[in-house]
């Protein structure tokens, strides 16, 4: 259980950083034909198909980002876009299939010859490596390099902030301190990972876990040559196993990648090597970046966080610009959590009053409107996850208006007919979240619920709303939040925010502190199902139970409006990466 809690905290961190490793969009406009491609761009085409399919080589791909990379060290990279960048130079045993639509959620062999051999008890995974795989310096990639790469994740004092899934999965009670403090002469002292020969690697897990291959597909599972490891400086010159290698890395400014001559396309069906060069430029001026995208001097916002308000207006009011813009669901839901420990919201009727009094349309507008903000959310499972149903709308939110009568009736039932006072907690560094907080505040006022806005520092998420004792002491009845899963399953999405065992003294993301045995049982059942559809049905029921408990006010199924340079080829939104697949991109004009 302690281990699970840590897994959850890790995904909480992913959320804090505003990213998600594995979740995607598409939703209902995903009309089956996933593998189609087109050469004529039209609005949102890239969300469901490959736009401008081409094998034209040459030129420079100009990526820009208004946000600095967390790190290019595969053990640390955790932003969705640096994970995507990693695919250019870090190969893993398995990786997401490079296809639009739901096919992208499936893993394909990468360095491994084939999918792993799993023991009957589900605890032992054996991979065989391909032959002819090499690092950028020409030396062969062996199973020991992969083991060493995974061991580095354990060195949290030197390489902090990365995802910890593999560390928690593979420690097995050894308390392995990482290779830098390893007493083994070869620095390969992690006992749960065996390398019987250079092309075989065996993992021993404590318990069966169907998510394990997904964990290995994170950059932390990529090979790292021990002789080139420079500890916390490794991010400045990472070795390459993929189609591109770093020419230079300048933290806070950008990076340049060039073709890796030792990458053999015959061993790698998942990536292309089209541009001669990939230049990443970090800027502090997001408006300037948007202007460059529109002018064509930048090709793509690598962070994929969506264009700024002014550029949004410019793009949406210009048909030509609109053609190469897209806004798929990104797997996040924005919502307010209602604390069950704060009176009078400990009474479900009072929570119901908040839900009915909220105005779905002002909340949607505050998030950026239907195109750049997202669709009005009706329940707590995002559309890209099996078992979700956007039409399931128990509170009638899709019609877009507050329901004052129902809210007043709920207040009556709660014993507070004239309303009550509470607080709305919101991070101060997210303008859109503050905007939703004020929108909610204004709507609640109409039924006599007076909510003060309590702003806190964004970095303190884990110790303010993430601390049940603080929530109770400060009376934070309503907490503005957002959530995206690291793995695209109902368990991965909903359990951390609605399952009793995830309630933690700090870094908590089960904000309402839901601990309903019926809900808990459904999650446990779902995890043990062999069939994905059966599991999906469990999660569907869990979602319904969560909605019936009146714990959340869902705002929107999140979307971001992004724009790409029309000269880009092979553009498509990858659901597994939750963004455009960088490793497929090329430029059509060869410049």
């Amino acid at each position: 259980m302690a281990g699970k809690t840590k897994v959850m905290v890790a995904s909480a961190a992913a959320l804090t950083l505003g990213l998600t490793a594995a979740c995607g969009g598409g939703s209902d406009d995903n009309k089956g034909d996933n593998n189609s491609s087109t050469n004529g761009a039209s609005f949102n085409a890239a969300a469901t198909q490959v736009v401008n399919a081409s094998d034209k080589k040459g030129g420079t791909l100009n990526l820009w980002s208004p946000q600095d990379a967390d790190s290019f060290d595969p053990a640390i990279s955790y932003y969705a876009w640096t994970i995507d960048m990693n695919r250019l130079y870090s190969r893993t045993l398995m990786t997401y299939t490079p296809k639009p639509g739901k096919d992208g959620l499936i893993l394909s062999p990468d360095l491994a010859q084939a999918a792993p051999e799993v023991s009957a008890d589900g605890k032992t995974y054996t991979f065989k490596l391909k032959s002819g795989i090499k690092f950028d310096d020409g030396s062969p990639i062996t199973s020991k390099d992969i083991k060493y790469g995974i061991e580095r994740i354990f060195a949290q004092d030197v390489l902090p902030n990365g995802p910890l899934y593999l560390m928690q999965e593979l420690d097995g009670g050894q308390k392995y301190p990482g290779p830098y403090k390893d007493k083994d002469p070869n620095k390969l002292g992690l006992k749960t990972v065996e390398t019987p020969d250079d092309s075989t690697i065996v993992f021993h897990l404590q318990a069966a876990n169907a998510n394990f291959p997904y964990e290995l597909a994170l950059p932390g599972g990529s090979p790292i040559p021990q002789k080139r490891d420079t500890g916390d400086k490794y991010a400045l010159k990472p070795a390459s196993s993929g189609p591109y290698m770093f020419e230079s890395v300048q933290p806070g400014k950008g990076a340049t990648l060039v073709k890796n001559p030792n990458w053999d396309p015959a061993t790698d069906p998942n990536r292309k090597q089209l541009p001669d060069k990939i230049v990443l430029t970090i800027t502090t001026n997001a408006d300037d970046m948007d202007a460059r995208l529109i002018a064509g001097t930048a090709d793509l916002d690598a962070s994929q966080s969506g264009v700024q308000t002014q550029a949004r207006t410019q793009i949406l009011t210009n048909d030509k610009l609109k053609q190469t813009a897209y806004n798929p669901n990104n797997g996040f839901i924005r919502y307010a959590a209602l604390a069950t420990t704060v009176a009078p919201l400990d009474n479900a009727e009072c929570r119901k009053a908040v839900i009915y009094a909220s105005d779905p349309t002002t909340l949607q507008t505050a998030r950026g409107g239907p195109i750049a903000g997202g669709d009005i959310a009706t329940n707590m499972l995002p559309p890209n996850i099996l078992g979700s149903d956007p039409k399931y709308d128990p509170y009638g939110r899709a019609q877009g208006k507050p329901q004052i009568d129902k809210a007043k009736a709920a207040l009556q039932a709660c014993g507070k007919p004239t309303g009550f006072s509470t607080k709305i907690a919101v991070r101060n560094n997210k303008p859109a979240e503050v905007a939703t907080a004020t929108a909610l505040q204004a709507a609640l006022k109409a039924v006599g619920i007076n909510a003060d806005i309590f702003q806190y520092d964004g970095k303190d998420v884990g110790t303010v709303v993430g601390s049940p004792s603080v929530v109770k002491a400060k009376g934070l009845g309503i907490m503005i939040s957002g959530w995206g899963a690291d793995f695209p399953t109902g368990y991965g999405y909903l359990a951390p925010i609605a399952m009793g065992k995830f309630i933690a003294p700090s870094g908590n993301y089960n904000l309402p502190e839901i601990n309903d045995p019926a809900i808990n049982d459904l999650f446990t059942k779902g995890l043990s199902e062999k069939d994905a559809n059966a599991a999906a049905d469990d999660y569907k029921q869990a979602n319904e139970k969560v909605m019936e408990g009146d714990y959340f006010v869902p705002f929107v199924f999140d979307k971001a409006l992004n724009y790409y340079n029309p000269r880009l080829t092979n553009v498509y939104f990858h659901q597994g990466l939750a963004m455009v697949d960088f490793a497929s991109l090329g430029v059509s004009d060869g410049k």
Partner: protein
Amino acid sequence: MSLGPEAPISDEIVAPTDDAAVERTAGEKAIAGRSLRQIAWRRLKKDRVAVGGGIVILVLIFIAIIAPLLIKLFGHPFDEYHNEKIDPTLGLPLGHLGGISKDYILGVEPVNGRDIFSRIVYGAQTTLTVAFLSAFLSTILGVLFGMTAGFVGGWVDSIVSRIMDFLLAFPQLLFSIALVSVLPPTSFGLGPRWSRVLVLVAVIGFFGWPYIGRIVRGQTLSLREREFVEASRSLGARSPRILFREMLPNLAAPILVYTTLIIPTNILTEAALSFLGVGIPPPYPSWGGMLSDALQFYRYDPMFMIIPGAMIFITVLAFNLFGDGLRDALDPKAH
């Protein structure tokens, strides 16, 4: 000038009277039989520009006081959402010039459709309260420490002077941001709005006092050696009496001028802090905060930027005009 970097420190040099002026004023008083106050008032009345500034200030104060009534008559509650006035896709106000219409005389805010007129009027309340109270605080501290330093002299003077020098060499804007952002959002049982006003007053007022303190100290130093002070001392008057009955009235003119001139700077500082995101918390309005919100929209909804910007400009200009006039009126050398 209370807050360093991007407000020029320079104005203090042109600021108030030196002792020669005070002396000559005393002389005029004897000849004409009119008090300094009367002379200054006559001069001020003749200065049409200064009077204009004064009238604008009075109007603004009046508006701030009757804000609730004004909003009842001409506006909507400052935190009321009007989504029907907003284009849902773009978040921009419907209609021309940021949604200006008969019902919304200054238009509506993008995204939420709140009435800009109401928010400007409430913003005036906040801005003027912060500006006046912090100027008051600076003056009290400045007079207290400046007079003590100048009058007592010796080690007290060197300590106070050192502290003033030190505060002036301090990256003040940064410190204000840091202090404001860590102080608790509510205190003394006040709501979030007035608690933050209090914090702003304390921080802006505190960093402003050395500017007044230095002037007062200099004036006190020179007054201390004057005949009338000596005379009073030889008659057996004690220090407090000399300080408050003899010297303070002579310091009144520069103090008044200086306090007036520090108000516009305080307005700019308050707006700057709100612009940088540490001012009045939402949903309460402030002009600087509105400008900061306008950052996202100024290209397609310029009125949302121009209206609060113009309000800051007009208010600061009015105070500057009035302060300049007051200084000229109290300083005979200017003629």
